[in-house]
């Protein structure tokens, strides 16, 4: 393990690491354009120049491996001058069109200009003209003039998505980043190139001109597009809502988690937030009056639902509950507790498999498009598709009086006939969900629930990693988190659940479910913890969890 000194700070670094990696670990900021920790190192942008003692030239921090006894200066006169020069060169042909550039605010050129540049331009000459605002894919717009040829996107397409769409053509200052003629950047991970583009050369069509990035609020969350559970940041525009135009989530950005998604996210997941403000979003409580669904209120509907529950219970008619793997661990636990303690329901299926097998690959996109199937399994739900079919069969044969369905669009997974007969078989159908579908259209009561950006909770991904979601925006209309709806029901019937926050549910959950024992919100933190079927945390994780809890409480 070589020991090196960066800016007077002594560090012991793993052999084979480069200076910039060592500096990153120590929290010393060295500027970079071409270097990206998730990609190979090319060392061509030259902005990361640092002064290394006993080396005649400035060295690129991203490529120079650490050697024992190395003394590095990142802020020396020479290093700053070198960086400033490189920056000046980068801006020679870069259009200064920050006003129309969506990258402004998160642009490395701007940041480093303010940090190291601040020179008066010597440039009098005309800038080279290249193609501007060319759509190069379903989601991406390319502005070649702004490109600084750092090749991050090219390396992404070569190394991560392995689709090789992009290349740098010509040479010298006429070199231009372009996709291969006739090819578009439409791989399942394409928009990541926008994230890694340090300047505004690659921008997102969907986000284009929507707002300026400095208006955005960020909330850490987890993608619900599939069971991978990629870590994301939800960007919302709370201070200037008129810019939202009916769409409260501005964009999703991947968040680094070395155990799950590293730096990336698939396009499907990136645009999976659209259902939050989709046209079919349920925002009001509804009930069926004379065969028509009408808007209602919680105050009106809750007693009616309670009465239905009560009468079904007293008449010893069956109550059936179909949970959903789209619900958080908290929702599922509260539901399970309520259903088994108060309603006496024992069989609780959750899974509805779609008729067609969805797209999946071996990187991030998984076949199971639900974020929490694993968690439902841990919590004692029956994750078998057949169990759901059995429940529907029961309903169809009239063995169920009251059916509570969460989220599911049953027609997506079952024959329309079966669904129809099942839903008409039950006297009362309560649909709890965030978006309308064919099932909700046939329900007796519709109780609107929050989407994942409107509530707190945890999801358990396919590998058993429990990860936290946070509330980014206020719930739409009357919608409530599912656990709140269940708790409100439980207050009037049977044993009341004494939950006030999602965290209360989780505390109860960790006490009662072996797989989650020892966890807490503070221990889960941003990275998540792995739950194990046999009930114990992994050795390393348990220690980490204990430490995290300690530091959190301290």
């Amino acid at each position, binding site marked *: 393990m070589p020991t090196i000194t960066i800016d007077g700070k002594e560090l012991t670094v793993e052999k084979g690491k480069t200076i910039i990696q060592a500096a990153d670990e120590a929290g010393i900021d060295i500027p970079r354009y071409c270097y990206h920790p998730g990609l190979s190192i090319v060392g061509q942008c030259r902005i990361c120049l640092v002064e290394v003692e006993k080396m005649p030239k400035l060295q690129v921090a991203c490529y120079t491996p650490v050697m024992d006894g190395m003394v590095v200066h990142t802020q020396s006169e020479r290093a700053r001058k070198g960086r400033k020069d490189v920056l000046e060169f980068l801006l020679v042909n870069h259009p200064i069109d*920050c*006003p*129309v550039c969506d990258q*402004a605010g998160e642009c490395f050129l701007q940041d480093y200009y303010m940090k190291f540049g601040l020179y008066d331009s010597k440039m009098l000459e005309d800038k080279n003209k290249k193609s*501007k*605002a060319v759509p190069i894919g379903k989601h991406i717009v390319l502005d070649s003039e702004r490109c600084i040829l750092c090749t991050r996107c090219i390396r992404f397409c070569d190394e991560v998505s392995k689709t090789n769409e992009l290349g740098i053509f010509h040479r010298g200052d006429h070199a231009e980043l372009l996709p291969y003629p006739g090819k578009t950047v439409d791989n399942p991970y394409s928009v990541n190139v926008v994230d890694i583009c340090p300047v505004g050369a690659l921008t997102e069509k969907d986000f*284009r*001109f*929507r*707002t*300026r990035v*400095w*208006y955005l609020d960020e909330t850490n969350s987890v993608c619900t597009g599939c069971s991978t559970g990629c870590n994301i940041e939800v960007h919302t525009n709370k201070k*200037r809502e*008129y*810019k939202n*135009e009916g769409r409260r989530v501005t964009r999703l950005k991947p968040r680094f988690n070395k155990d799950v998604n590293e730096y990336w996210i698939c396009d499907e997941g990136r645009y999976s937030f659209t259902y939050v403000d989709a046209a079919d979003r349920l925002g009001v409580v509804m009930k069926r009056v004379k065969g028509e669904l009408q808007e209602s209120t919680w105050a009106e509907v809750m007693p009616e639902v309670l009465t239905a529950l009560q009468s079904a219970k007293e008449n010893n008619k069956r109550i059936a509950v179909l949970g959903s793997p789209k619900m958080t661990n908290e929702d599922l636990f509260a539901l399970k507790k309520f259903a088994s303690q108060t309603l006496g329901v024992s069989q609780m299926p959750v899974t509805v498999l779609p008729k067609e097998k969805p797209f999946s690959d071996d990187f991030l996109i998984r076949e199971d498009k639900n974020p929490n199937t694993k968690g439902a399994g841990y919590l004692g739900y029956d994750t078998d598709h057949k169990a759901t079919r059995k429940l529907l069969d029961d309903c169809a044969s009239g063995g169920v009086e009251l059916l509570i369905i969460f989220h599911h669009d049953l027609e997506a997974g079952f024959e329309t006939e079966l669904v129809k007969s099942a839903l008409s078989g039950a006297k009362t159908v309560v649909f709890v969900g965030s978006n309308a579908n064919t099932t909700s259209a046939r329900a007796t009561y519709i109780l609107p629930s929050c989407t994942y950006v409107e509530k707190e909770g945890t999801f358990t991904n396919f590998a058993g990693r429990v990860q936290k979601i946070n509330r980014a925006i206020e719930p739409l209309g009357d919608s409530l988190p599912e656990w709140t709806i269940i708790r409100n029901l439980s207050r009037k019937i049977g044993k009341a659940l004494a939950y006030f926050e999602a965290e209360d549910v989780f505390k109860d959950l960790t006490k009662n479910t072996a797989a989650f024992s020892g966890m807490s919100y503070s221990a889960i933190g941003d990275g998540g913890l792995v739950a194990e079927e046999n009930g114990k945390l992994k050795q390393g994780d348990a220690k980490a969890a204990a430490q995290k809890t300690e530091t959190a409480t301290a």
Partner: protein
Amino acid sequence: MNVHDKYKPLTWWEKTYLPAIISGVLLTFGHFRRNMVNHIKKAIGMKPKVSGAVTFQYPEVRRPFWPRLRTLHRLVRREDGSPRCVGCMMCETVCPAHCIYIVAEERPENQIEKQPRIFDIDLGKCIFCGYCVEACPEDAIRMDTGIVEISAYTRNDMMIRRDQLLSLEPKKEYYTERPDLEGKPVL
């Protein structure tokens, strides 16, 4: 620590405030006396050397605008009549009163990709600080219309919209010298 510590401490006599009050009152009273005499002189038909007041009789007499005066905003147009504004939202960002509302849109022409679809200024909130003019990288917003009488019956009417802003013209007649003060005050 009090900011006044850096000044020299007041003497006992000064601490009573009396000298300051007296000198202040003498000054204002001096003005009162001088102006009153002039007013009376005028009232009884004598012609005073100077007028007792320096006020302009608005709205009959209007005070000329100084070039630096900040009046109602306008959006500058390009030669083809489209807004010069590119919707960068710098003004919106810098506005201390949060009175500018911009929503951008794609501009059909590719070279300048962006333009504002909505550009509203809430004059009810605006404090006429002129930061938006300073911040604009395109010199697209200016406060030189010479319109100072801004009033409306409802809050909504205080919103000035993009097309209104674009339709405004700069006021050209500026006075660069101090205008004549020998106006005729009406008592």
